[in-house]
C-alpha cells in the first residue's frame, strides 16, 4: 500500500493498524471514513446548485436546492411536512409489520413442514407473481381510500419477499448441522430455535430489506392515486399545481426514507450476524 498520509491522518491510522490489510477493500482508517459515503450526494447537490444559480437549469423544470430547502423549511415550520411524513410512516410500518409477520409465519410453516409446503406453497407462488401494483385498483375498491387500503396494500407487497426468503433460508440450512444437532439431542422447537432459525436469519434479513424498499414504493403509488394525506398525496397534489419545489422535496424524502430503512435493516444484520466473519471485520474496522 502506498498512500500518502498527512501526519494527523497517520496518527489516526496507526491506532487501529492491526485491522488494516484485511478484507477485499482495505484502506487505512481515517476520521473521514464515516463521512465518505455522503461525499458523492453532497457534490451532486453542489453542482446542481451552481447550475441553477448560473441559470443552466430553468427554475420551472428543476428548482435549485436552496429553494427546495426553503420550501421544506416552511412546510416543516407549519407542521404540514411532519403530518404527511407521520401518516406515511405509520402506514408503511403497520403494513410491514402485518405483511412481514405473515410472511415469516407462512415461511416457517412451509419451510419446516412438508405438509405445510404442499398445502400453501403452490398458492403463494402463484400470488407472488402478481405485481402488487396490479391489485392496487381492486384493493382501493374493496377497502376504500382510507387507511385500511394502504395498509393492506403494503402488507400484500411486503409479504412475499419475507415469505420467499424465510422459506428458502430454512431449506438451505446446512443438513450436516441439523444431523449433528439431532445426534446431540436437539429436537422439535429447540432445534428450530438454536439451529434452523439462526441459520435462516441472513436470508430472512435479505427479505426484510427488500420488503422495506417495496413498502415505500407501493405506498407512494397508492397515496398518489387515492389519499388525503401522506407524502404520495403531497407529491400528487403538487403535480396538479406544477409546484416543482414540493415534487422535488418528495423525491428527496423518498430517498432519505429509503436510506433510513436500509440503515435500520443493516443494524439488524450487524446485530444478528455478528458471528459471521464478514461482520466481525466490519465491527473491528
Amino acid at each position: 500500500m502506498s498512500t500518502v498520509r498527512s501526519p494527523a491522518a497517520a496518527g489516526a491510522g496507526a491506532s487501529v493498524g492491526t485491522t488494516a490489510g484485511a478484507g477485499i477493500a482495505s484502506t487505512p482508517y481515517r476520521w473521514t471514513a464515516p463521512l465518505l459515503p455522503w461525499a458523492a450526494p453532497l457534490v451532486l447537490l453542489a453542482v446542481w446548485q451552481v447550475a441553477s444559480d448560473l441559470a443552466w437549469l430553468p427554475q420551472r423544470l428543476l428548482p435549485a436546492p436552496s429553494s427546495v430547502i426553503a420550501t421544506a423549511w416552511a412546510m416543516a415550520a407549519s407542521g404540514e411536512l411532519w403530518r404527511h411524513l407521520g401518516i406515511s410512516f405509520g402506514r408503511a410500518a403497520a403494513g410491514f409489520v402485518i405483511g412481514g409477520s405473515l410472511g415469516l409465519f407462512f415461511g416457517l410453516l412451509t419451510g419446516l413442514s412438508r405438509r405445510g409446503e404442499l398445502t400453501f406453497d403452490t398458492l403463494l407462488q402463484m400470488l407472488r407473481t402478481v405485481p402488487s401494483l396490479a391489485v392496487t385498483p381492486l384493493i382501493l375498491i374493496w377497502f376504500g381510500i382510507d387507511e385500511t387500503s394502504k395498509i393492506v396494500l403494503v402488507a400484500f407487497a411486503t409479504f412475499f419477499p419475507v415469505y420467499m426468503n424465510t422459506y428458502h433460508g430454512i431449506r438451505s440450512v446446512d443438513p450436516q448441522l441439523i444431523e449433528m444437532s439431532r445426534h446431540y439431542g436437539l429436537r422439535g422447537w429447540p432445534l428450530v430455535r438454536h439451529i434452523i432459525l439462526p441459520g435462516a436469519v441472513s436470508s430472512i434479513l435479505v427479505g426484510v430489506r427488500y420488503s422495506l424498499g417495496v413498502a415505500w414504493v407501493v405506498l407512494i403509488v397508492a397515496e398518489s392515486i387515492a389519499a388525503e394525506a401522506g407524502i404520495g398525496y403531497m407529491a400528487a397534489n403538487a403535480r396538479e399545481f406544477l409546484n416543482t419545489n414540493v415534487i422535488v422535496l418528495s423525491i428527496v424524502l423518498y430517498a432519505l426514507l429509503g436510506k433510513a430503512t436500509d440503515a435500520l435493516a443493516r443494524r439488524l444484520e450487524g446485530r444478528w450476524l455478528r458471528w459471521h466473519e464478514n461482520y466481525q471485520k466490519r465491527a473491528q474496522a
Partner: protein
Amino acid sequence: MTTASVVHPARFAQPEPAAQDAPAAAPAGMALRIASLRKSFGGQEVLRGIDLDIEAGQFVSIVGRSGCGKSTLLRLVAGLEPASGGSISAGVRGEGGAAVRLMFQEPRLVPWKSVLDNVGLGLKGDWRVRAGVALQEVGLADHAAKWPSQLSGGQRQRVALARALIHQPSLLLLDEPLGALDALTRLEMQQLIENLWLRHRFTVLLVTHDVEEAVALGDRVLLIDAGRVTLDLALDMPRTRQRGLPAFVHAEETVLARVLNRAPPGQAA
C-alpha cells in the same frame, strides 16, 4: 431382505449424565456386539454382513479404502441411519446410562454459537462449568468466548471433541476426524485422543484411511473391504507407540499389504 432387529445403542443414550459427577469418575466403556449387519442404499449393498465383538474400553481402528463401508458402519452404530438387516446391541457396563457420541469428519460447529455454547449444545441446566472443564481437557480453555470462525481447523476439531466429551460417552465414534488436518496438528490430536481415552476408558471406534494412525492408536485394527471385515489384527504394543520400532512397522506393513492386496511382508521374499 431379512427383517432387521436392530437395537440402537443411541436409544439407551441418556444425554444428561449426573451433573455432579466429576469428570475423573469416568463411566466404563460400552461393549458392543454386531451380528450379520447389513446395509444397502437403493439396491447397492454397502455392508454385507459384519460380525464384531468389541470389548468395553477397547480402542478399535477401522481402515479401508474409500467407499468400503467403514463410515456407514459408524453411522449405523451411532443410530443415524437404520440398518437393512442384522443387529447392533450394546452391553452397558457401569452405571449412569451410556451415551454414544459421534465425531464427524467435519467439525460441524454451530457458527452462530460461541465455542462454549457449542460444547454445551443440547444440554439443559447448569452445564457451563462442565463445558469449561471439557474445553480445558482439549486445551482450549482460553477460547471459550470465541466464535468458531476465529479458530483454526485443528482447534475446531478440538471443540468438536470437547462437545462429545461433555456427554461422558461410553462409546466414542470417530469418523476420520483428523482427515483434513495438517501432519503436525494431526499428530497432536492423535496424542490428545489417546490421552483422553487412557483417562476416561470409553470404547472407541476410529475410522481412518491412515494406516499409521490406525496402528498408532488401536488395540485392534480392522480392515473393511467391500462391506466385509477382511482383517482383524490385535495389537499389543506399549503406549505411547514409537513409530519407528520394528513391531510397529511390521504391523503397519501387514495392514497396508492387505489394503493394497499385496503379499504380506513375511511371504514377500
